[in-house]
């Protein structure tokens, strides 16, 4: 297996509690491939991305498992080394472009900072790279945008900037945390198309966190379905849409609205299915003893 990111048996609990929020998660993203991570709100999909990037909220603690990035276990490293390692090979495309840029720093500096400070590029090279990337994400007049502050740009432009910033450092892995959720529908399509093109051009492995199976079918090759912090299905996307295996996956797929008949297809996930998958989670918890 040539997985660039391999998560093995990862469990996390809320501090002070005993309930697991991540339940023995196994997940791999191979070099150059895009893996979708889907689930309902609160299923823990964003948490997996945050665990990989070392930015879990302090209330969540990892109690077992490994996160191997390029073969090295992040969880075994001291904080400083972990951050450097992550910053060198991985990048995040955040959910909300309106809050993910520092309001008091210029755009250009927010793209070049990692290149200069962490990767050791010269200022000139970093600026050239930033301009090139801004051009690649189809921003008009990149020179002017570099000198702007975030409040001078629209939400869609800011997300383009963040995508440029993520790709600028030539990361091997990008974690996209619901990158289109906060945008309005017309912009969503453009941004999604942009991310797909950029990924294909740069060949970057990607973990794409989303609640939208439609997005998964367009962007991803592999898919993990998460329920209550547990991976219930791990398949190639083409197989999954042809024939989902897990009852919950089937129900989830059935609940996805169809453009042909949106109102008739707006169905909640069947309660019987929820009950059976809940029972499955409970059974797994009984087997699990945390140290």
């Amino acid at each position, binding site marked *: 297996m040539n997985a660039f990111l391999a998560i093995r048996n990862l469990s996390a609990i809320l501090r002070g509690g005993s309930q697991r929020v991540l339940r023995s998660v196994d997940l791999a993203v191979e070099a150059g491939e895009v893996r979708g991570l889907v689930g309902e709100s609160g299923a823990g999909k964003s948490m997996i991305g945050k665990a990989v*990037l*070392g*930015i879990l*909220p*302090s209330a969540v603690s990892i109690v077992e498992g490994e996160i191997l990035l390029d073969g090295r276990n992040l969880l075994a490293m001291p*904080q*400083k080394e972990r*951050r*450097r*390692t*992550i*910053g*060198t090979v*991985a*990048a*995040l495309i*955040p*959910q*909300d472009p309106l*809050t*993910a*840029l*520092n*309001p*008091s*720093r210029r755009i250009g500096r927010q793209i070049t*900072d*990692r290149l200069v*400070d*962490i990767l050791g590029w010269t200022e000139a090279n970093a600026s050239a790279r930033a301009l090139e990337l801004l051009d690649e994400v189809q921003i008009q007049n990149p020179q002017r945008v570099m000198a702007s*502050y975030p*409040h001078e740009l629209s939400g869609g432009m800011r997300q383009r900037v963040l995508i440029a910033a993520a790709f600028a450092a030539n990361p091997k892995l990008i974690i996209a945390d619901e990158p289109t959720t906060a945008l309005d529908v017309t912009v969503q399509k453009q941004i999604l198309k942009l991310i797909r093109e950029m990924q294909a051009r740069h060949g970057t492995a990607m973990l794409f966190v989303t609640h939208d199976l439609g997005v998964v079918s367009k962007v991803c090759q592999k898919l993990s379905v998460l329920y209550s912090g547990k991976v219930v299905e791990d398949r190639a996307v083409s197989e999954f849409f042809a024939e989902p295996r897990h009852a919950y996956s089937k129900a989830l797929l059935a609940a996805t609205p169809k453009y042909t008949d949106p109102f008739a297809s707006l169905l909640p996930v069947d309660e019987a299915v929820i009950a059976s998958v809940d029972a499955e989670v409970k059974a797994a918890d009984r087997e699990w003893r945390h140290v």
Partner: protein
Amino acid sequence: MTLLRSLLLRLATMAVTLFGAAVVVFFVIRVVPGNPIAMMLPPGASETDIARLSAHYGLDRSIPEQFLIWLTGVIHGDFGTSISLRQPVMPLVLGRLPATLELSIFALVIAVIIGGASALAGTLWRGTKTEAAIDVANGVGLSVPDFLWALVLILLFGVLMPIFHISGRISPSAELPFVTQFYVFESIVRLRFDLWWDLLKHMFMPALALAIPLAAIVSQLLKQSLKETMHLDYVVLARTKGYSENHVILSESLPNAVLPTLTLIGVQFTFLVGGTVIIERLFSYEGLGNMAIDAVINRDLPLIQGIVLVFALMFTLINLLVDMTYALLNPRLRHA
């Protein structure tokens, strides 16, 4: 164009503020009990002597009339003559102002350094015993007023461990080569670090007494603002870029967290300058505040008016300075 307009507007506001301060102080010190003439003449002076002296200082006229005469003088740069010192008010006040300015600014610098450093430390070690200790220290610093800190400091560093001077601005034996009243500034320019050190040893305790409450407020608010930014998306994003927590706090959080603190420092700095009145008295520091107390004791009406006007001017200038710094630091206001 808009910049010029807003500046003119600010200047007009300042003029109105100063006029208001002048009116209030002028009338208040004339309606409170106490007669400057009675303070000047020996007991048993005759009625005619009192009347003659009152007439000399224009105190026999009605208060509005006195105000008009005084205001006309002020507009022409004449602030009257001190009754107790028998000298023109403005040179007296301007002679003392530098001492108070140096003390206030030194106190502000101490407060910002202590407050800023403890806020950063408290943010870096948030949720630990270090943060709890800083919170306790801030509570104590805030709840004890500056003049009590002055007494504590005198006891500690003036009596028990006499390492600082507790009285005056500079050692009386020192030969002063200075031409301005900005002693600290001038001692540096003239490279007289012996005098500079002597000045600092005199200024340290009054400045620290003034600084402690402000440092506590700065620390409290800045730490609060910093902690609020720590889980914001752009701070989290910076962590994923590979930066250490120190760097994240200093270059991502601080520039945004510093804005509310800056406004607060502006407001609190005016209180600090007000505090110099008592503190200078306690340390026999030859500044404007010390002079103000003498002026009040002597019912020296023109001198009180002059001092209050200069204090009021200082407060409005501080506020202007804070607003300008704020606009400079906050890119969202730069075009507004």
